[in-house]
């Protein structure tokens, strides 16, 4: 023990007298600290909490690889170690003392960097500071162990230099230490999965940025284990391969031991490349960073979402939330460390909420279904929603797995798209509406598609079981279909009312809002009687009786008239492609799909005068029902049924707004339905759909005043999603 202490003291003294060591440990990270502060706008956001970890990692890399690695080669080359060889000690005290002194030298760096971040950039101090010290200490020990091995397997300073650079440089540039990983190509991010530095960077980011504890996060626990293993393996091998004199040479094949020490990370890298689970993790962290900023949208008209309008106001956004809403120009941006967006002449709305979309279909007509990949299609459609200012959407009938997966990716920030609320498959009858989509799929996948898209209970018990199973899968609501069809050719088997009631009862018991597709007033009546949360479409064939509307108003059952889809079908079957001339449609729909759809529709391939007439009547009927419902005090929500032909996810919401106003609904009421009411229907009224203190910063800033000219909602100036000012063109491939 005396030997350990004496060697440790001696190391500390020598280190304190070495300017190079002080430079690499303290000054070098400090230079990057201030450079990054500039780069990540540390003064107006949480960027500081993101990069503090990268600066700490940089210090650890230098401390370990150069401090431990190069120093031991130097001591051996100068034959200083030789003097120790004649004393009665093993290499262990020398290696341990070196590790301990490196660690002690490093610990003040944490305090220095975190302290500076706190004092200068107002970074909150980490709550899990024990985790922080632990992570940093493990990092130093592991990297000093790696450094010791590098020293052990090289014969000269020049060799050591090359070998250290070979590890240092990639780790500095690929692990997120200097360049944010999210801007690196996927292959580089994959390479980074093999590097211990990557796990340090993400571990630190978790602690500083996401306030994680080390042991509260599985990824970190695994990383801690790997660092620990590397330390132990490294020390063990460093003792075994230790050389005291420069005259003792080591065979080059021993360099393979480096791989041995890095083995825990090589294994983790292989595992992660195999599972691909962590791809996109870096994007998620950058996402959080982008959402962390502070800014004011100033001097603008604000549609608050509670039915009132502030003609001139200012909204303060910080860390993803609306912090406050002010009258006039609001507070001094400089004092708040906030960016400013001047909103004069514009109107700020809560992000729109489309409560009826099918994101797995594109809204157009494909030349060939070969181009269709469900994951890609729904991600693209969901991004198009966000592009168009729709920040939340309810998927009322999509493949269960694909929509849950996308919801997860968006929730974690791996993908950008409208926040999704998933119903998954639709409850219907054998031969009922919804099952026709299964037939469109190729024979060999039909069973699979059916499983993903529809539920056809045979008994009440089975119906309840199916609802329970969906609840377990994590759906946000249930979709059921009551529809007997139109005219001569569009006839469906209507779901048995008893089964439907079983679904409705279980959905209520499981606290899942029930959305019911209805075709006529009988369907609406049954839906209302069963206690649906919303009636989708309403009646397209007859007037909804006043008594039913009164009950809806009384029970708080929403009507979602989906005028856009009725209008679109009436045009589609009439061979009219006017919808494609809309600017927002052209911005969001791929050129291929746009051309294919235009060719198909214009060529008259979809023309069917009988159906065109049916839908023209349905369109008129649903407008009439909407107006009467509004007058009867029925709560209104807005959906589009996007995904149907010519009903494009995103633009169709703006079309829906226009159609409501055309139908005689005041703009403010339509906007209220498209924002706050939608949020309430999704049971998210406290988080989204309004502009007030504490709500998610989901905002749509448009040029002009949609309260006077509803078309203004299409003239989008800015979309804010969870506090991030979106780069809209970057949301999807501009191809």
């Amino acid at each position, binding site marked *: 023990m005396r030997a350990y202490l*004496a*060697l440790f*003291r*001696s190391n500390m003294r020598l280190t304190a007298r070495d300017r190079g060591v002080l430079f690499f440990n303290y000054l070098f990270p400090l230079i990057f600290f201030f450079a990054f502060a500039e780069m990540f706008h540390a003064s107006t956001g949480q960027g500081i909490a993101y990069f503090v970890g990268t600066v700490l990692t940089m210090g650890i890399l230098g401390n370990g690889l150069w401090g431990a690695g190069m120093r031991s080669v130097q001591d051996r080359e100068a034959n200083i170690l030789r003097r120790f060889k004649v*004393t009665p000690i093993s290499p262990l005290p020398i290696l341990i003392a070196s590790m301990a002194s490196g660690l002690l030298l490093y610990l003040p760096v944490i305090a220095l960097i975190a302290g500076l971040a706190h004092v200068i950039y107002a970074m909150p101090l980490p709550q899990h500071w024990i985790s922080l010290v632990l992570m940093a200490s493990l990092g130093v020990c592991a990297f000093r162990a790696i450094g010791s091995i590098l020293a052990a397997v090289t014969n000269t300073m020049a060799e050591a230099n090359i070998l250290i650079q070979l590890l240092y440089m990639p780790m500095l540039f690929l692990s997120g230490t200097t360049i944010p990983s999210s801007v690196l190509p996927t292959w580089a991010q994959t390479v980074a999965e093999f590097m211990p530095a990557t796990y340090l960077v993400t571990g630190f980011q978790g602690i500083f940025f996401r306030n994680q504890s080390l042991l509260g996060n599985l990824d970190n626990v695994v990383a801690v284990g790997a660092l620990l293993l590397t330390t132990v393996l490294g020390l063990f091998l460093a003792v075994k391969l230790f050389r005291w004199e420069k005259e003792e040479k080591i065979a080059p094949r021993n360099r393979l031991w480096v791989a041995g020490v890095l083995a825990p990370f090589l294994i983790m890298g292989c595992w992660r490349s195999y599972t691909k689970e962590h791809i996109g993790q870096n994007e998620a962290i950058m996402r959080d960073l982008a959402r962390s900023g502070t800014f004011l949208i100033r001097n603008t008209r604000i549609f608050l979402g509670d039915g009132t309008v502030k003609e001139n106001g200012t909204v303060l956004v910080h860390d993803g939330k609306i912090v406050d809403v002010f009258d006039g120009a609001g507070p001094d941006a400089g004092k708040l460390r906030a960016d400013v967006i001047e909103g004069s002449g514009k109107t700020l709305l809560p992000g729109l909420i489309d409560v009826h979309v099918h994101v797995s279909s594109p809204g157009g007509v494909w030349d060939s279904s070969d181009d269709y990949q469900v994951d890609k299609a729904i991600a693209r459609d969901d991004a198009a929603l966000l592009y168009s200012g729709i920040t939340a959407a309810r998927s009322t009938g999509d493949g269960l797995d694909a929509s849950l997966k996308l919801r997860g990716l968006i929730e974690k920030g791996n993908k950008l798209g409208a926040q999704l609320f998933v119903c998954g498959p639709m409850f219907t009858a054998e031969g009922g509406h919804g099952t026709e989509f299964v037939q469109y799929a190729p024979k060999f996948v039909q069973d699979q598609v059916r499983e993903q898209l529809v539920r056809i209970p045979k008994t009440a018990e089975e119906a309840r079981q199916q609802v329970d199973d969906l609840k377990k899968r994590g759906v946000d609501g249930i979709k059921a279909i009551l529809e007997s069809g139109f005219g001569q050719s569009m006839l469906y088997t209507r779901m048995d009312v008893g089964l439907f009631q079983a679904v409705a009862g279980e959905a209520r018991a499981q606290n899942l809002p029930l959305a019911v597709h209805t075709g006529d007033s009988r369907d609406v009546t049954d839906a209302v009687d069963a206690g649906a949360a919303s009636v989708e479409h309403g009646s397209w064939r007859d007037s909804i009786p006043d008594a039913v509307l009164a009950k809806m108003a009384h029970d708080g059952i929403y009507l979602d008239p989906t005028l856009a889809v009725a209008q679109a079908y009436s045009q589609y079957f009439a061979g009219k492609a006017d919808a494609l001339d809309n600017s927002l449609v052209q911005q969001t729909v791929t050129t291929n799909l746009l051309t294919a759809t235009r060719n198909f529709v214009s060529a008259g391939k979809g023309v069917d005068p009988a159906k065109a007439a049916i839908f023209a009547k349905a369109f008129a009927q649903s407008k009439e029902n909407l107006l009467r419902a509004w007058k009867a005090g029925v709560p209104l929500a807005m959906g589009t049924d996007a995904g149907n032909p010519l009903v494009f996810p995103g633009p169709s919401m703006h079309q829906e707004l226009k159609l409501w106003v055309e139908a005689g609904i005041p703009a403010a009421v339509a906007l209220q339905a498209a924002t706050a009411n939608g949020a309430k229907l999704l049971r998210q009224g406290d988080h989204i759909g309004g502009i007030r203190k504490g709500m998610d910063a989901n905002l749509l800033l448009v040029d002009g005043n949609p309260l006077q000219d509803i078309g203004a909602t299409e003239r989008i100036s800015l979309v804010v999603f969870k506090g991030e000012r979106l780069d809209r063109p970057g949301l999807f491939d501009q191809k």
Partner: protein
Amino acid sequence: MSNPIEVDGLKKSYGGLEAVKGVDFEVCAGEVFGLLGPNGAGKTTTVEILEGLRPRSGGRVSVLGCDPGVQTRELKDRVGVCLQSTRLQDKLKVKEAIEVFAALYTRNVDTTQLLKRLQLWEKREAHYSTLSGGQKQRLALALALLNDPQVLFLDEPSSGLDPQARLEIHQLVQDLRAEKRTILLTTHYIEEAEKLCDRVAIVDEGRIIALGTPREIQERTLANSTIEIDCELPVPAGDLPAWQHADKISLDERRTKISVVSTRPARTIVEMVKWLDEAGIELADIHIKRPSLEEAFIELTGKSLRE
């Protein structure tokens, strides 16, 4: 009781190269024993095997009853070693070096006294890099003495030092000898071996080619003493007599200087003086040149030490 150092048939090869080809000697308690030989003779290799720094290829070795290849750590704890060249970190202070190395041994001497004795007390706060060659070597000796060792290995202790520093080191070695410590030193300085060593082994090409006190080695060599007598007057013409034990009898041109080589110079001188006296020639001066260890070495190895 066995000797502190015993070496029997020691061999060491590096790959195909045989550096030590079977060496036998023992060092008695309290003795200063020298290994004398040119660079590359195998001296350092031999010593380092005894110090436990390298494994041997063959033979039997015992230091303080330990086998250096087996009880390495125990041995290292008990002996003192001054390496051929000692290097410490430039910015390490003298007293810190003493402190850190002292901590590695189970037994320590009083470090203050040690520093004073080695005239390093005034330099205790100095960085290693600022020390002179002599001071560095004294520090190296101090490190060797930290554990109060009964056996000391001094590998070329005065190599590369200026004459003054060398004398200081010599004095220290003599002091250590007076303390009855057993010392094995290697050197390629003849005078060092003559001055310091009780016994010397001459090593060349991995073998001991002579072993004994310096005097014994000198006497064992074939080289004889040269006697030169200067006369006041020229020696009369005619042959000089054949004095006993004398050889290579010669006269210079002026016939005033007689030079002979004798295997028994004391005997020969008596006869020569007697003859000159009888011849009525006054003696001006007499020189007796004894063969040096150096000459003995050259004669034994056929090569010079300094090359």
